[in-house]
């Protein structure tokens, strides 16, 4: 067990190192100069630009050789310092990200978990009902094949523009400032609903289809037939099939949970929802090296943690992994 986890941990550390290196490289491959972009917005005199350029380049640590920048980057990470944003200068990147993360969690955690439970339940239910299988599952295929943004735009158009029930932009009313009151909470929930619904529906379709197919596969497995031949009640056979069919769904869930901090880029863009996804778009448009790096770093850590969690969860729920581990270390 310890050896298994040790080996896994080593792989995760290596992955982290490589991913962070790539994360550092990618913004620097982008054409253009972030400081130049920033100064061009200020419309200064030519001499002033020169002075300011030198100053900011030093301030962002872009004046030292590239290898030095890379080392400084690693040192800073371990000090919890992700640099200063160029686009939202002079706010520290970490602060900007921390401000955005709660919106992502608030939007995605319910969407992912609820769609998972509802989708699996519905899929398992549809698998044994011919009528549902023939009517609602095709709908599931359509839903899961729908791009998030397209469904988002449709919902925004229908409920926001045509019916006027829900607002279509922002996380709360533009006329409000965040404070603790029922009016504000109501506004937050109202703004949250459409982005939530667009993500929930697409994911729900995917989970339902996956579960339905897995259940049918498990019900046709030899152990199901054997139980049937021994006259086991349907309830027991279905319980076994459900438990075995849920295993791949758990993997899927964990991968989904891992990207919670990444936000839902397209959905957030459609609804101008101020999560990490929206932030990434802004950062890229403004060539903000440090904000891009910071956002991606959060995604890397989230995905790796989720994977690690699922490795451990699998050891608990699937005896085959547990025993495979013993075999490996033996």
């Amino acid at each position, binding site marked *: 067990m310890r050896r298994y986890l040790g080996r896994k941990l080593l792989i995760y550390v290596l992955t982290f190192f490589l991913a962070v290196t790539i994360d550092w490289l990618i913004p620097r491959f982008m054409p253009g100069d972030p400081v130049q972009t920033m100064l061009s917005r200020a419309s200064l005199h030519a001499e002033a630009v020169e002075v300011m350029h030198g100053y900011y380049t030093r301030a962002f640590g872009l004046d030292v050789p590239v290898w030095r920048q890379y080392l400084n980057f690693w040192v800073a990470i371990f000090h919890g310092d992700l640099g200063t944003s160029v686009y939202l200068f002079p706010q520290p990147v970490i602060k900007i990200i921390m401000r955005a993360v709660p919106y992502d969690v608030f939007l995605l955690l319910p969407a992912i978990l609820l769609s998972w439970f509802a989708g699996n339940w519905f899929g398992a239910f549809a698998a044994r009902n011919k009528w549902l299988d023939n009517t609602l599952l095709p709908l599931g295929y359509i839903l899961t094949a729908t791009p998030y943004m397209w469904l988002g735009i449709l919902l925004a158009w229908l409920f926001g523009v045509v019916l006027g029930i829900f607002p279509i932009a922002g996380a709360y009313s533009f006329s409000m400032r965040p404070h603790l009151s029922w009016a504000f909470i109501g506004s937050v929930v109202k703004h949250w609903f459409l982005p939530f619904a667009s993500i929930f529906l697409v994911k729900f379709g995917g989970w339902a289809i996956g579960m339905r197919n897995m259940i049918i596969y498990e019900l046709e*497995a*030899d*152990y199901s*037939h*054997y*139980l*049937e*031949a*021994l*006259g*086991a*009640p349907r*309830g*027991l056979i279905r319980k*076994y099939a459900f*438990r*075995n069919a849920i*295993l791949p769904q758990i993997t899927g869930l964990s991968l989904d949970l891992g990207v919670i901090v990444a936000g839902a880029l397209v959905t957030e863009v459609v609804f101008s929802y101020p999560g990490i996804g929206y932030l990434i778009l802004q950062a890229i448009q403004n060539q903000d090296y440090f904000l891009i790096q910071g956002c991606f770093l959060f995604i890397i850590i989230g995905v790796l943690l989720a994977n690690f969690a699922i490795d451990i969860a699998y050891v608990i*729920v*699937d*005896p*085959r992994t547990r*025993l495979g581990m013993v075999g490996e270390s033996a």
Partner: protein
Amino acid sequence: MSLQVDNLTVYYQTLRGDVQALEGATFSIADGEIMGLAGESGCGKSTLANSLIRLVPPMRLVRGQVRLDGEVLPIDDARRMSDYRFSRVSVIPQYAMNALNPTRKVGKMMAELLGSKGVDFAATIPELKRRLDLVELSHDVLKMYPIELSGGMKQRVVMVLSTLLNPSLLIADEITSALDVSTQKAVAEMLVGFRDRGFVKSLIVITHDISILYQIADTILIMYAGQLAEKAPTDVIIRAPRHPYTKLLIASLPEVGVRYAERRLSGIPGRPPLLLDPPAGCRFRERCSVAFEKCLEAPPFVELEPGHFVACWKELGEDVDG
């Protein structure tokens, strides 16, 4: 008679029509009898066995009746049939090695299965352990997951589980096919032991390996293309078969002590007919060297001598002039 099968006819429904996999099977098995069921692939052995315990679509009962200990089995009613399964009719399936739920410990799965059938698992544990000893399995298997067991061990677990409620009829479907020769013999002897100890009243052993049947079966039933060809005590089938197909089948088996470099093994020329639209009459007609006009009618399965049934016009004394 523990099992009586009357005119049992089972088809498979397909888009291209019915596959007539089992046609008018009529036979019986005595208490304590081990009946071997042999024939080539696709001859309807497994169809016959499945219809006795798990007749599910695309299989369709066309006609016929099955009685077990004098009681009619509701073979085409899955709901009512499940009361008979396991306790009265049981099976050791062809896929015994994959028959256990991979994510349940063997003992727990048995407890859940028995519990769901209203049997007190705790009370059966002493008997269960005695039977595990009998098949030379450690009691620890109950605390293990199926992947911790070898294929042979899993099969023995299934043998013990399937017979735990002392069924009247046990169907062993190709259980020796995936085993090496020495294990085959051990498994075959365990089956005989189960019968001798009264765990099962009578047994149907399906195989295409007649040498295994020669060791353990009391009688052998030979099938060809969905029809019964011949049923007789094992010795009679091996030494004095009367149906032309049985004769050719036995002749094509290797014999110990014969060097086949000197004498070629004979086969049976031709192929079995397609069962989607089988020829009327005796289905062996096309490959039979003694066939004549009468064979255009299906021959009845008649008891020529006590315990020896044959379905062949020639053996019934019909002649060319008829």
